[in-house]
């Protein structure tokens, strides 16, 4: 007979959505169990953005791309804390115009800036969201300089990092990322939540007034019985689990992300000193469609980016300190699908960029390159295979007006909208507070329920919505 765990609320997934849900409900006195497929690792179990991190914390080794032309590598975490353990830590509130779009088109109720304000503030306080108190990384300053020279307004984005009190005035504050394992997960445990790592939820079943999770732990069956379930497995695994459970209406049909193209910039001076510290400067001149910023620029990532330019013969080991990677990303109406594959635990993700997406990405890339030349870059290597090196702004005409599907390297780390929320039942999967349409006490409370791509780093939105929805469930909103 399968081992059984009984509780009032089962939270499946321990990323930003799940951890906030579990902590909020446990602190309200609910008997909560939080399941996590991955292991429970400390934040510092491995260097950030390293291959060791890929080994320990990435789902599928980071190798389940969105299939399409081009394929888009995407990054999902599989560990307690989810994406917060591996992301950049950059924080945004949801842009007001995005909230308005979600209210108008998806009929999401109680979703004004004022409605979300207490939830943003609570999460910001818990995560120590703040600007870097020390000097910014040189690569980030280049972004700021280039933007200002073009008359564009750069912004410094706050991060959820805790910085030590005593800092040498000339050193960059390294800070400690306030991921879920540093904040909401231990807080949930203190509030009485039981955390069960290493559990894969296979299927959800309704039995009378109870829900049942059919799961596997270390090869053995495990059953979790609860009055309510919050599915917080992320924008890929949440719809995959619901669809395995034959809950399919508007589930997994509208996956959105921020397709991102990168460029390696070479400067005269050394600008890459702390390669695991991502610069916080972003340029929102072309928002909401386009955003630009700094990307991880460690030597392995530079080497990876330069594989699009093998003929350039750049001596990375000698030059890497003068090099940095920047990105341009777009957000828009294109969506993809998540589907289960028979006999495979991994879902298939399909996403087809439109011609308009590829043209907008090209424009975004050109503008990013203009900014970098304005900042003093001497050479640019965009993520397009066989594109000649760009040595001046005059070379920008070499970038095709529409990025070529067969030669462009894209990626994304922001995934959402696969189970959109709202009262417009024709194309939403869950109601305004995350309850799956037609299923009492079954909720989605993670990135899946964002209605569209928000155009900004999404974790702030995910956490605020999760808190709001959990409090609504607890009748404390």
């Amino acid at each position, binding site marked *: 007979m399968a081992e059984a765990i009984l509780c009032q609320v089962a939270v499946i997934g321990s990323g930003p959505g799940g951890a906030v849900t579990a902590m909020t409900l446990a602190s309200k006195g609910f008997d909560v169990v939080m399941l996590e497929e991955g292991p429970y690792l400390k934040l510092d179990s491995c260097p950030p953005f390293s291959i060791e991190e*890929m080994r320990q914390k990435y789902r599928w080794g*980071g190798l*389940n791309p969105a299939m399409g032309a081009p394929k888009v590598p995407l990054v999902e975490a599989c560990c307690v804390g989810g994406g917060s353990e591996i992301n950049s830590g950059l924080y945004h509130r949801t842009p007001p115009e995005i909230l308005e779009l979600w209210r108008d088109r998806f009929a999401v109720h109680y979703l004004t800036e004022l409605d979300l304000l207490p939830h943003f503030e609570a999460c910001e306080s818990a995560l120590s969201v703040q600007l870097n108190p020390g000097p910014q990384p040189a690569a980030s300053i280049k972004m700021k300089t280039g933007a200002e020279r073009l008359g564009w307004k750069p912004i410094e984005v706050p991060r959820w990092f805790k910085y030590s009190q005593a800092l040498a005035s000339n050193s960059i504050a390294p800070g400690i990322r306030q991921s879920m394992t540093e904040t909401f997960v231990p807080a949930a445990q203190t509030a009485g939540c039981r955390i069960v790592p290493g559990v894969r939820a296979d299927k959800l079943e309704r039995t009378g007034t109870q829900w049942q999770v059919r799961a596997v732990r270390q090869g053995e069956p495990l059953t979790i019985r609860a009055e309510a379930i919050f599915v917080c497995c992320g924008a890929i695994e949440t719809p995959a689990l619901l669809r395995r459970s034959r809950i399919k209406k508007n589930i997994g049909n509208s996956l959105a992300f921020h397709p991102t193209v990168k460029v390696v910039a070479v400067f005269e001076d050394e600008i890459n000193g702390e*390669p695991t510290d991502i610069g916080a400067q972003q340029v929102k001149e072309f928002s909401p469609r386009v955003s630009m910023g700094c990307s991880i620029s460690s030597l*392995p990532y530079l*080497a990876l980016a330069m594989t699009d330019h093998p003929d350039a013969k750049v*001596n990375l*080991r*000698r030059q890497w300190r003068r090099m940095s990677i920047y990105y341009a990303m777009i957000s828009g109406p294109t969506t993809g699908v998540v589907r289960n594959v028979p006999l*495979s635990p991994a879902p298939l993700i399909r996403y087809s960029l439109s011609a308009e997406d590829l043209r907008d990405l090209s424009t975004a890339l050109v503008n990013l390159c203009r900014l970098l030349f304005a900042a003093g870059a001497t050479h640019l290597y965009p993520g397009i295979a066989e594109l000649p090196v760009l040595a001046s702004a005059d070379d920008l005409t070499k970038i095709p007006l529409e990025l070529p599907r067969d030669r462009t390297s894209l990626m994304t780390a922001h995934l959402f909208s696969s189970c959109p929320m709202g009262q417009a039942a024709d194309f939403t999967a869950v109601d305004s507070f995350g309850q799956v349409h037609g299923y009492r006490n079954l909720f989605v409370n993670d990135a899946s329920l964002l209605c569209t791509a928000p155009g900004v780093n999404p974790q702030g939105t995910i956490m605020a919505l999760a808190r709001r929805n959990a409090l609504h469930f607890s009748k404390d909103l």
Partner: protein
Amino acid sequence: MSVFSGREAMLSYLSKTISTLCRDIAAMHDCSDPVCAAASYDDVTEFVVEQLRKMPVFLSRPILLATAVFGVSRLFLEGSLFHNRPQDQRCFQVESWRRSRFGPSRDLIKFYTSLVVLALYSRPGTAAKEIEGDG
């Protein structure tokens, strides 16, 4: 030949093809000195194989099939499998697949190159190392 010995032969062939391919790609990126080709890249190969095992099966199987095809693709022209040929011929084949007009050929080399490069440049001390005489 039993089914099991056939499967073992295929696994052995794939293993040799993958390790040789990873070693060649690593050597091409590590330095231009032919002496470097004798260096050990077992750690790099190990990372690539580990990642292959973690991938969804519906993706890793086509990659392994393509790798098998890569390994035999010049058998009739050159008279031997990829992993048995001299290094210069192997590097020529890697380059020709990398530049191929056929998308899946390019994708295969890009897949291995990405993982090899990540592992190679993640080796401890790599960031501090400088190689004399590189291009």
